[in-house]
């Protein structure tokens, strides 16, 4: 069956000679995962540095807190990863969380069934996502503008509902998601604890990984980010998939609202200001290209943990003024973006 023609010689890279050549050869063929590996190396480096300088980092209580305090961030980082891989952006995440949590708490306090309320909170998010996706896909609105509109809309609606902290009833079953479960009983308070919220975040990560890497929908999402027009001409369901990522992003924002509210027990219309930017930063640090087509949910998790760990280090240090957190975040982000540019340029 095969054609007998003089095809160009195999284009596989020649077998690398030395260890150095092997490394560069690997880097050449794995350019897309390079920034993610870099993020992992930097994260490990940060952990080691913090352990040596401040101590008590690699211990159960610190690790537990890192996970518990950042579970909502991990969830929305996964959400943003989906969107950014298609080459889009979702700025409405933080505001959707605010609306969802305020509305959810008010409904729960009004006596609605707690489980129904949790489902509704996710559904609110999904609805915002659906509107964004529809604007982007069918009215050709820029993702930046469409989700910016949703951001103002959601934030405004949250403020319409209430401008004061809404406290979730102490006996509400929603709080169960925030209860700490002891996994490992360490000396004194040095226990390893998790909350159902952490479990949810980890399930989201696993689910995100599965969808992106093991389903045709996931591969379509990557293909859209690679070149939307090509994906379209290849006969892939581009329209549906593009809508879907915004619905996923919205739903996960609703879920993050559930997890966050359960932990804090309070919902407020000013919750989540700037969280979308944290999530974008986490995704970018974790190796997701803002131009689309490359990125990993696991990378975004590392990105979220890098941001979380930075906060831990800054509070431990004590001599770094808290205002510096933002400056340092900016610096770290800048470094990663430059790294990505270098990688992209090499690929071109």
């Amino acid at each position, binding site marked *: *069956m*095969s*054609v*007998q*023609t*003089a*095809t*160009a010689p*195999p*284009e*596989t*890279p020649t077998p690398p000679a030395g260890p150095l050549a092997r490394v560069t050869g690997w880097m*050449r*063929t794995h*350019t*897309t995962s390079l920034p993610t590996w870099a993020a992992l190396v930097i994260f490990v480096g940060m952990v080691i540095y913090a352990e040596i300088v401040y101590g008590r980092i690699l211990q159960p209580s610190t690790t537990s807190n890192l996970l518990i305090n950042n579970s909502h961030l991990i969830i929305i980082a996964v959400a943003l990863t989906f969107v950014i891989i298609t080459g889009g952006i979702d700025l409405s995440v933080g505001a959707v969380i605010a609306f969802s949590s305020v509305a959810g708490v008010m409904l729960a306090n009004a006596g609605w069934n707690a489980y129904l309320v949790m489902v509704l909170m996710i559904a609110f998010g999904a609805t915002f996502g659906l509107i964004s996706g529809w604007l982007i896909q069918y009215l050709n609105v820029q993702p930046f503008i469409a989700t910016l509109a949703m951001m103002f809309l959601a934030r405004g609606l949250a403020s319409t509902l209430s401008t004061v902290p809404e406290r979730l009833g102490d006996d509400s079953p929603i709080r169960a998601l925030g209860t700490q479960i002891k996994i490992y009983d360490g000396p004194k308070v040095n226990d390893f604890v998790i909350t159902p919220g952490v479990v949810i975040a980890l399930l989201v990560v696993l689910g995100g990984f*599965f969808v992106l*890497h*093991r*389903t*045709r929908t996931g*591969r*379509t999402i*990557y*293909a859209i*980010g*690679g*070149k939307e*027009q*090509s*994906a*379209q*001409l*290849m*006969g*892939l*369901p581009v329209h549906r998939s593009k809508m879907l990522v915004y619905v996923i992003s919205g739903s996960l924002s609703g879920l993050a609202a559930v997890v966050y509210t359960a932990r804090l027990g309070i919902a407020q219309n000013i919750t989540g200001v700037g969280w979308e930017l944290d999530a974008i930063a986490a995704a970018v640090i974790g190796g997701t290209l803002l131009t689309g*087509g*490359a990125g990993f949910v696991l990378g975004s998790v590392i990105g979220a943990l890098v941001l979380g760990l930075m906060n831990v280090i800054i509070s431990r240090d004590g001599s770094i003024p808290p205002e510096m957190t933002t400056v340092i975040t900016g610096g770290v982000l800048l470094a990663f973006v430059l790294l990505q540019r270098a990688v992209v340029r090499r*690929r071109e």
Partner: protein
Amino acid sequence: MSHEPIVEMRGIHIGFPGVKALDGVDFRLLPGEVHALMGENGAGKSTLIKCLTGVYSIDAGEIVIDGSPRQLAGTADAQEAGIATVYQEVNLVRNLSIGENVMLGHEVRGRFGISWRATHRRAKENLERFGLGHLDTRLPLSTLSIAVQQLVAIARAMVTKSHVLILDEPTSSLDKQEVSTLFGVIRQLRSEGVAILFVSHFLEQVYEISDRMTVLRNGRFEGEFLTKDLDRSSLIATMIGRELSTLAGEHEVRDGVAPGQREPLLVAENLGRKGSVGATDLAIGKGEIVGFAGLLGSGRTELARLLYGADRPDSGSITLKGRKTAIGSPAAGLANGIALSSENRRDEGIIADLSVRENMILAVQARRGWMRPLSKKDTDEIVDKYIKEFGVRPADPDRPIKNLSGGNQQKVLLGRWLATRPDLMILDEPTRGIDVGAKADIITAVQKLAEDGMSVVFISSEIEEVARVSDRIVVMRDREKVAEIVNDGTVSAATIVAVIADEEGTAQTVAALDVSDETFPGTTSTSTPTGTSTSTERSES
């Protein structure tokens, strides 16, 4: 090959705002044949293909595939109907692996979602069919050359076991060796009974590979021919819509200066740009009108853009008035006394909302820099002069240019560039889409300018016009200069068409032209094709 057609399109109409893109086009495709779709750029080839691939939906007409009428509402629909397409630009995604590109949307699924092992195995099997079994399917697509990517794209297209394969300009970025590999693949698919629709502007390739051709012009069906029954000159005559016999015309030899004796203004050596124009030698004398002739898309415009600096050449040099000059930007072109009036009057020429006056002084002002605005007096002087000289109607400098007719807009643009007093004026399609009167005005103006010592490059799709106006004609084909014809008064459009049509004889033609003009006794008897492929018989020689 007495099969029923696998694709039959009847009376296809499609229009875009303001344009009738396809006007009652018929087309059929038989299994086991390579069918070439021919026509100039803009003839509707791409549009027809996009109707068949579901990218555009048709306004009227019928598409019958495999005996049943179909409504194609998208690429997925077309694939469903067994139509696979490979486009000129490799439509794969560079961020994913080779194997994934082959299998995207058709990945093999196991119990835990996609089974990558099985998917890559299937991809490899598909690639093996096309002699690409040696590729490591797990490497990123971006590690492959464009040519191999193109073959991968075909492998991908055939994953769906399609009966129809559309190849839209698949060879434009391939070299000879790669083309022959591709043709091997095409022949294999043909022998398997796949119907192949092949679009290429390389006549040589079309004659090599196709069994049958359909010619379109201006969105209309011009005819369906067996390739062996239609020689190249007749094909080109059909494509440009002229009878070969009517392509005669005359050129009055001006002032009797022999072309070699003109003082050279611009000498380009080896000037070229990858993917745009092959290395070209070209000399333009002072006061000479040099015509660029060739089909749309033959590289005429691209060569002009290189001379002007609109595109940066990546090989060769330009010597201007005896000095080597680097022209890498339009500003540099303008500073060196070269002006280009674009073929795309609406997008690259006029600024629709500005007045005639503002449009006309734009280039002079650009040359002076924004720090030194033209005085009111100078402005009026320039504007009045050219409005009068070219007879711009209405003669109102304050009217927005968008309210003028195409011909008058063109006159304003001419004025714009002439106001910079260029040594070389490049006119790309200055007469396209304008009425006869304005056309005559512009041609007279061009001839007068040349008499006053300005050099002119004249580009037009109307080959008769080029033959009439030019002192010397540069013939372009497939993004190469293939010949240079001195217009001694006997050159007609038919001569030029013969040169465009002649593939194999190219080398001899050019050589012969350099030596003497005798090879061109008015009509066509250029050197006969040597060697291998089809012989070109010219109908009226």
